[in-house]
């Protein structure tokens, strides 16, 4: 299996594999790839709406444009091999896609209110996943399995999780794809920052908010869209907690580096997972991706949320996000984000968040990220301030 394996690389690969097995992810999705004219997702990702497993082309592109190219980098052939799964030490057949990721983090938070303040620090295993996918003719399939340190809606048992597992078929050169299984909800910007208000309060993150259902995707490189019939998350129970409805988006590429889209979601659960009562939940919004200058990508999203719980007040809220990603040197990302959240209902004030991050794709299959965030939360006329520092290491194979 480990053919063509040099001594040093063998140790690197073995160490990486050991680390991945000992712990293995949160899905990757780099929306800012639009700066390179990659507005469409399906050519690089097995998931037609992006994120997760890479196609062979996606790996090649990633090897070329994701990391900082050091002057001592090897020749073209060596680099092409290094960009492959497990640094090219394993050669799966063309129809089989493999991947793995390991993302440990340290989170330090400070909360202050009414003159009181408290700081806590915690280690988090955010991601430790193995992924396998099939891309044979029109057939498509993908599955992930991993462990994390928190309990999760993706749990199979305990801390063993499967974020996604689906089978499908693609027609007409991936213009149309139909899938069934546990799938990322098609909604808004597919970003890795799952705690942003636009993802958290629409419950559409790619961390563990996937649902079981059937999805139909369309992508002709000018328009991409996906709509999913949601049957519920069958990795939680009892059945009353499961949401049924739909989620979807459509995005128009106005130019190779400029896209605008709309999203919509309506679900109903007999026992809302947050409210504990029957609730019909809606989210509808707009999003934009724009790269006016190659090193700069601007992402924006605004979503209106509606919660109509039985026995509770109707709450019409608004979540917004504006993010700028600057890449002054290939592989080094300076990211600034601002976000707001107004839940509606009895809460009339707005919560604000501001984040700054440095994400450096320092070498093959490795990036280091440091986030600093400040939030001012509206709590019934009071303000609670939170400061967060998050340091992450991300090894992806």
């Amino acid at each position: 299996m480990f053919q063509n394996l040099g001594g040093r690389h063998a140790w690197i690969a073995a160490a990486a594999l050991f680390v991945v097995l000992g712990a293995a992810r949160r899905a990757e999705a780099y929306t800012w790839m639009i700066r390179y004219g990659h507005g469409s997702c399906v050519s690089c990702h097995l998931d037609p709406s992006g994120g997760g497993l890479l196609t062979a082309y996606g790996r090649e592109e990633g090897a070329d444009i994701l990391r900082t190219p050091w002057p001592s980098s090897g020749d073209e052939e060596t680099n092409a091999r290094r960009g492959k799964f497990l640094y090219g030490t394993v050669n799966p057949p063309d129809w089989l896609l493999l991947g793995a990721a390991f993302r440990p983090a340290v989170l330090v938070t400070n909360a202050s209110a009414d003159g009181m303040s408290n700081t806590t620090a915690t280690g988090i295993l955010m991601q430790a996943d193995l992924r396998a996918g099939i891309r044979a003719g029109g057939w498509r399939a993908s599955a992930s399995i991993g462990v994390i340190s928190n309990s999760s809606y993706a749990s199979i048992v305990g801390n063993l999780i499967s974020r996604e597992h689906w089978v499908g078929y693609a027609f007409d050169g991936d213009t149309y794809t139909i899938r069934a299984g546990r799938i990322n909800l098609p909604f808004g910007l597919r970003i890795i920052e799952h705690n942003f208000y636009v993802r958290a309060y629409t419950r559409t993150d790619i961390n563990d908010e996937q649902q079981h259902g059937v999805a139909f995707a369309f992508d002709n490189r000018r328009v991409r869209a996906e709509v999913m019939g949601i049957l519920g998350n069958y990795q939680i129970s009892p059945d009353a907690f499961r949401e049924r409805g739909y989620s979807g988006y459509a995005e128009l590429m106005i130019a190779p580096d400029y896209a605008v889209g709309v999203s919509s979601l309506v679900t109903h659960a007999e026992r809302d997972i947050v409210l504990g009562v029957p609730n019909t939940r809606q989210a509808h919004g707009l999003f934009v991706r724009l790269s006016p200058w190659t090193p700069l990508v601007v992402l924006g999203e605004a979503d209106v949320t509606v919660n109509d719980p039985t026995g509770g007040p109707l709450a019409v809220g608004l979540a917004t996000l504006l993010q700028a990603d600057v890449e002054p040197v290939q592989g080094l990302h300076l990211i600034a984000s601002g976000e707001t959240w107004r839940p509606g209902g009895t809460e009339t004030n707005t919560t604000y968040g501001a984040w700054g991050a440095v994400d450096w794709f320092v070498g093959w299959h490795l990036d280091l990220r440091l986030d600093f965030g400040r939030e001012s939360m509206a709590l019934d006329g009071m303000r609670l301030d939170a400061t967060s520092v998050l340091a992450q290491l991300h090894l992806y194979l």
Partner: protein
Amino acid sequence: MIWLEALAFLAMVAAPLPAAAKPTFPCALLDGLNQACPAQVSLQPPCSDCHLGGKTGGATPFTAFAWGMRARGMSGSVESVKTAIAQMKIDGVDSDGDGTPDWQEIIDGTDPNEPGTASNIQDPQLGCAVGGRRAAGGIGAALALAALALVRRGRRRR
């Protein structure tokens, strides 16, 4: 072959992991309010009072109620939970603004983070094996195993 072994190993190391929960915290909340803790877990304050969506662990204690508790000294110890909820009561914190202070909602079994919630809120059960069904979640492992078994077979043919 190595992948089948890898998956088996992953399953073995992952399954016994604790869910990173603090099962003593719900009772500590009631203790800090001088209330007896019911033996029945479903009658105790749910994890979702502090943890987003009831998902326990260090990355999720970010509900409005949890932030209020953390500002008042809640950390990783049971004692800090007791003193923080006592301070919440003194301060009269009402995180969801429904007119009922958080400490009273903890006793009543309603959600201090959301107005209009029913009493005795329960967390969802996480995982495929609960609720009497081993449903679609198992498909993931089955798919991965099937794909990797195919790789193994393909290698043997070469």
